[in-house]
Structures are given as C-alpha cells and as structure tokens.
C-alpha cells in the first residue's frame, strides 16, 4: 500500500475546478517531484492535502497511510505525519518562534499519545537542528517569520519539518526566492531527512532544486492532471524543452 494515494481527485476553488482527476501514488521512502507550468494546480494540490478550508474536493479520494485524508482536520493530518512547507510562510506577530515550535511539537505528540518533550530536551533539539540550517538563536527568539528574509522563512519551514519529523513532506516551491547558497542549505536539510520510511513530494517550477534533491519519480502536472510521469531525467528534459507540449496536451 502506498503511503499517499490520490485517486481521481477533483478540487474546486470558488466554484472553479482546478484539479480535474488527479492520480498519484507515493510509496514510503520515495521522493516525487511535481513540475508544471503556472496555474496547473500544483499549489492547489499542496493546500488540499494540508486541508485548507476554501479548497473543496468534489470527487475522488486521498488516502494517507490507508486513511481518508478528508475525514481529518488540518491538525489531525499533521499529527498523522503530513507536513506542508508553505510557498509563502506566514508571519505571526506576537507568537515567538520557540513557543510556536514547542506548541506544534507537543500538540502532535499529545495527539499520538506520546509524552511532551521537556524544556531542556526541546531546546537541545531545536539548537541542534537550527544550527545545521544556519538559523541563529536570535531568529528563534523573534516572532514567527516576522522580519525574516525570504530565505530565512524557507529555512524556518525546513526547521519545522526537521523538528516535526513527518512521514510525508510536501514542499511547495520551497526553491522560489532562494539564492544558490540558501538553496543548498534547504536541500541539505531535506536530504538529511531522507529515509526508507519518509516520503517527499517536491513541487517546483524549475529543475534547479532537483539537482540537489534528486527525485525518484518526476510528474508533469498540467491542466489539473498528471500528464506525464518519468524518472529524474524527465526534469532535465522539461528544463530543455519547456512545458509547451504538455499545455497543448492538457488543453486538447
């Protein structure tokens, strides 16, 4: 059984159908890349998996670890092991980053019936992980993402992922707005977490990120459907030839 199974998924936003019968199966330990032109539904897929309210599934199903994802609230999905790295991480004035991380981690542990982490243990974990991602202590003391640069926000997303240790991480254009150094740091952060139990869905517009996070499988999403699936070489092919042929295919 695949860890994530998306069957004939249709999703609407404000009455407009964005995903039109999407199929996807991600096995444990696999890294899938989803590439596609703007407006193809990449972010919609990310949000609908995480459970954003205004994204309405109208047909099809998503099974996560065998359970119907749409029966679960966003926090339950997270506790079950689903993580979305946001394309545009939000700023939360007044909520200290450490408080946020700790509340999130302990809420998930509580829901899974695990004991909360003690304060020293928690601080040790965060220090260790943030050090590797080049996040300094001052950033952790500040409010979540407030005053962070674009690159810092993305690194903060990866820090959250590393701390929460999800089964499946969906990275929504995590490469956008990153310079090459930040891209490497983020990619290293992801690669460090790769394991036979953990899967990734890497959504990106460009091949560049995939040179650092090498996928097992590459999909082309266009017009709300997966129109082509291949190996990592497909990403290079897309980089060379563009999406034009797939857009025609989707429109046809």
């Amino acid at each position: 059984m695949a860890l994530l199974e998306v069957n004939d998924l249709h999703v609407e936003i404000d009455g407009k159908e964005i995903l039109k019968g999407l199929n996807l199966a991600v096995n444990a330990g696999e890294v899938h890349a989803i590439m596609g032109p703007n407006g193809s539904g990449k972010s919609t897929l990310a949000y609908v998996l995480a459970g954003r309210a205004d994204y309405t599934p109208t047909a099809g199903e998503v099974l996560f670890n065998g359970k119907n994802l749409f029966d679960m609230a966003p926090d339950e999905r997270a506790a079950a092991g689903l993580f979305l790295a946001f394309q545009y991480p939000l700023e939360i004035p007044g909520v200290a980053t450490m408080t946020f991380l700790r509340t999130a981690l302990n809420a998930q542990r509580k829901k899974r019936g695990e004991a909360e982490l003690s304060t020293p243990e928690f601080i040790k974990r965060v220090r260790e992980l943030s050090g590797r991602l080049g996040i300094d202590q001052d950033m952790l003391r500040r409010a979540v993402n407030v005053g962070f640069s674009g690159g810092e926000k993305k690194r903060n997303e990866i820090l959250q992922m590393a701390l929460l240790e999800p089964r499946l991480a969906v990275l929504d254009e995590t490469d956008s707005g990153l310079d090459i150094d930040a891209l490497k740091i983020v990619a290293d952060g992801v690669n460090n977490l790769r394991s036979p139990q953990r899967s990734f869905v890497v959504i990106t517009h460009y091949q560049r990120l995939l040179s650092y996070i090498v996928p097992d499988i590459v999909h082309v999403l266009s017009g709300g459907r997966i129109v082509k699936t291949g190996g990592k070489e497909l990403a290079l092919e897309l980089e060379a030839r563009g999406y034009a042929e797939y857009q025609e295919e989707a429109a046809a």
Partner: protein
Amino acid sequence: MNAEVTPIKTAAETALAQAFAQARDRLPGDDAVAARRDAAFGVFAKEGLPHRRVEEWKYTDLRALMRDAKPLAAPPDAAAIAHAKSAGALLGDVETRRLVFVDGAFVPAISDLTGLEAGLTVGSLAQALAGGQPALAAHLGTLAPADNVAVALNTALMGDGAVIRVAAGSTVERPLHLLFVASEKPAASFVRSLIVVERGARAMVIESHEGPPGSDYQVNAAVELFVGDDAHVDHVKLIGEGAEALHVSTLAAAVGSRARFNSFSFVAGGAVVRNQLFLNFDGEGTVAAIRGASLLKRRQHADTTLVANHIAAGCQSREVFKTVLDDEAHGVFQGRIIVRRHAQKTDGKMMTQALLLSERAEADNKPELEIFADDVQCGHGATAGALDDDLKFYLMARGIPAAEAEALLIQAFLGEAIEGIEHAGLREALLDQVAAWLKARAK
C-alpha cells in the same frame, strides 16, 4: 419661556435621589464637604443618568443599562470580612501591600498597615473627611471632571476610599494594592481615593475590583492621582467584577514635569463596565504609556473612555488598547488626545484594536485628535476584525488544534498591550488571567 428641565424619571434615578436624601446627613465630612456633595448631586439632578444622546455616553447608555439603583452598602459584617481575606487572586503571586475595602468600606483589620516604608502615608477617606484634613480639601475633587455624571454621583455619595501620600523623593518598593471586594448582598458602593505621589517619588498602585458572580451589585470608584515632577508612577486597574455587576470607575490624573507615568486597565469581569481615564499632562518632558486589555464574552458591555490632555510642551504619550470580544459582547473604546496651544513638540500616538471572535459581538472604536498646537507628532489608528483564517490554518497545519491555535493568536493580539508592563510578576499574572479566560472559552 420654557426652562430646560430633564425630569428625574427612571427607577434608578429616583432611587439614587432617595439614597442621597437619606444618606446625606450621615455621609462623612464637614459642612464644606456637604456643600460639595450637594453641588455634585445637583449636576446629577439636572442631567439625570447619561444616555445615548449625550455624546460621551453614546455607546454606553447608562439610563437604559442601569435598571435600578441598589441601596448604599451597609458596613460589612464579620462574614463578609472573613470572605474578603481570600480575595485578590487576580494578582497571582505578586507581593503587595494590601488595603482592603469591603463593599466600599476600608477594613484595617485585614489590610497590611505595618512597617510602612519611609515617606508613605496611608489612611481612609472616611476618616480623613471626618477629621477635616486641610491637605485633603486642597486636592479632593480638583482633578475629576465635575460635569461628568459618574464623577458627580461619586462625589455626592463617596463613603470611603484610600488616601495615600508618597513623600518627595521616597520610593515605595512594594506595590500598593487597593483591593475592592463586594460581598454577597447586592448593594451600591461609592469609593473615592486620593493618591499624591510627590516630586521625585516612586510608587506602583494597583486597584482591583471583584465580587460574587451571581450578585447584581454596583460599584462607582474614582481615583484622583497626583504625579509630581520627576516622579515615576505605575497605575494598574483590574476590573474582575462578578458577572452581574455594574462597574463605573474613573481615574483622574495630573502628571508633572519629566515624570514617568504608566497606566494599565484590564477588564475581564462585570456585566456593564465603564472605565474612564482623564489624564492631564501638566508639566514638560513627561513620558507616559497608557494601555489596556479587555476580554469580553456573553453579553458583557465594557466601555473605556480616555482623554489624554497635553497641556505642557514636550510630552510623549502612547495609548494602546486591545479588546477581545466573544459571543454577544459589546466593547467600546473612546479615546481622545488633546494637544493644547502651548503643548508644542507633543508626541502622542494612540492605537485601539478589537478582535471579534463571534459574528454577534460588537466593537465601537472612536479615536479622536484635537490639536491646537502647530508643531506636534500625533496619530491614531483603529482596527476591528476577526481572527486571520490563514494564520489559523498555518498553525493547524503544524498540528496545533483549532482551539489552541485561536488561543495562541488571541494571546499574540493582546501581547502588545500586556508585554509592555514592566513588573514581571504582574505581567505573568495577567497572562495567566488571559490563559484562564481562553481555557474557559475552549470548554
């Protein structure tokens, strides 16, 4: 020609007139005080209870909200005093010098009057009035606006209160805690306090108000506060009245030169609350932070009315008021910064924000600037809105359940006002109060 007459007509107005007539001769004070009471009652007799057509009371129609007037509270009995010993939980572990008032009457037996710091004098208003203290006469009634009907009623019916003096140059380390407790019996208390912090002195004064949840008692509390030149005063008001109570309170302060003055109002209790602050910046170079946080639910009505009056030049004032409203609560903020002609280089900024957790809650924000000087930096802002769904989703996407996510965002919203409190213990106590309110909400 017809004279303009507002006939006394509501049940509450009639009851107040009767209460004054009956109590007039036994209320403390000499003839001069009695004359002042008569004059103040005259203001009420002429105006009646304020109503929606009186601009300052537009959103808090006291005539409609005050269905009756309770009889003046009798002196507290032994049971009420014993009960009051356990009051003051709002303050958590903060070490204070307690001055306890039960149903408006000072109770020395359960107050902490030993080992007063050098320069600190503490007494009761009833005694001071009865003793005809000249210092009292010089200050009392000079700050509170006489034409404000709530103040007028307070002046007419004031029975007791605290009289505190901090002598020039002295520092009172322990916060003074004026703890006002209502007993089980629904009654009305009119308390008036006078606090004089002289030149260069330093003190923190906390007033807290509480009472039983099921009693529709009434409190009218006023404080006149003199902050001398170079003095540093922190004032905190905690309104944690019982759920059925009517609470009207007034702070009237005159702040001297180069002073530091902070005031914080916390409103979490009471059915109807009107919290009035009238602040005069009389001396140059003062820095003031005036903040507040209100947490309202069910059908609570709470009104904060603030007038920051910059009379002297070169003062800085910051006003930050935050209100969280749930259910059918109604929050009102009226804030006015006045900059007089000679108050050049005034730096005044006011922000008021309401967070509505329910579609049936209502927030009225009325910020005003009245500027008569030409070289000033003043501004105000007002917002009212619901919780941000995107932020809530972001938190939930990290595994934080809906109620907890909302609580985090509400705490963050209030944080800006509460985090500014310098006293760490008090800040923690208030954050605990907020947490308790949120916990009760999540149930």
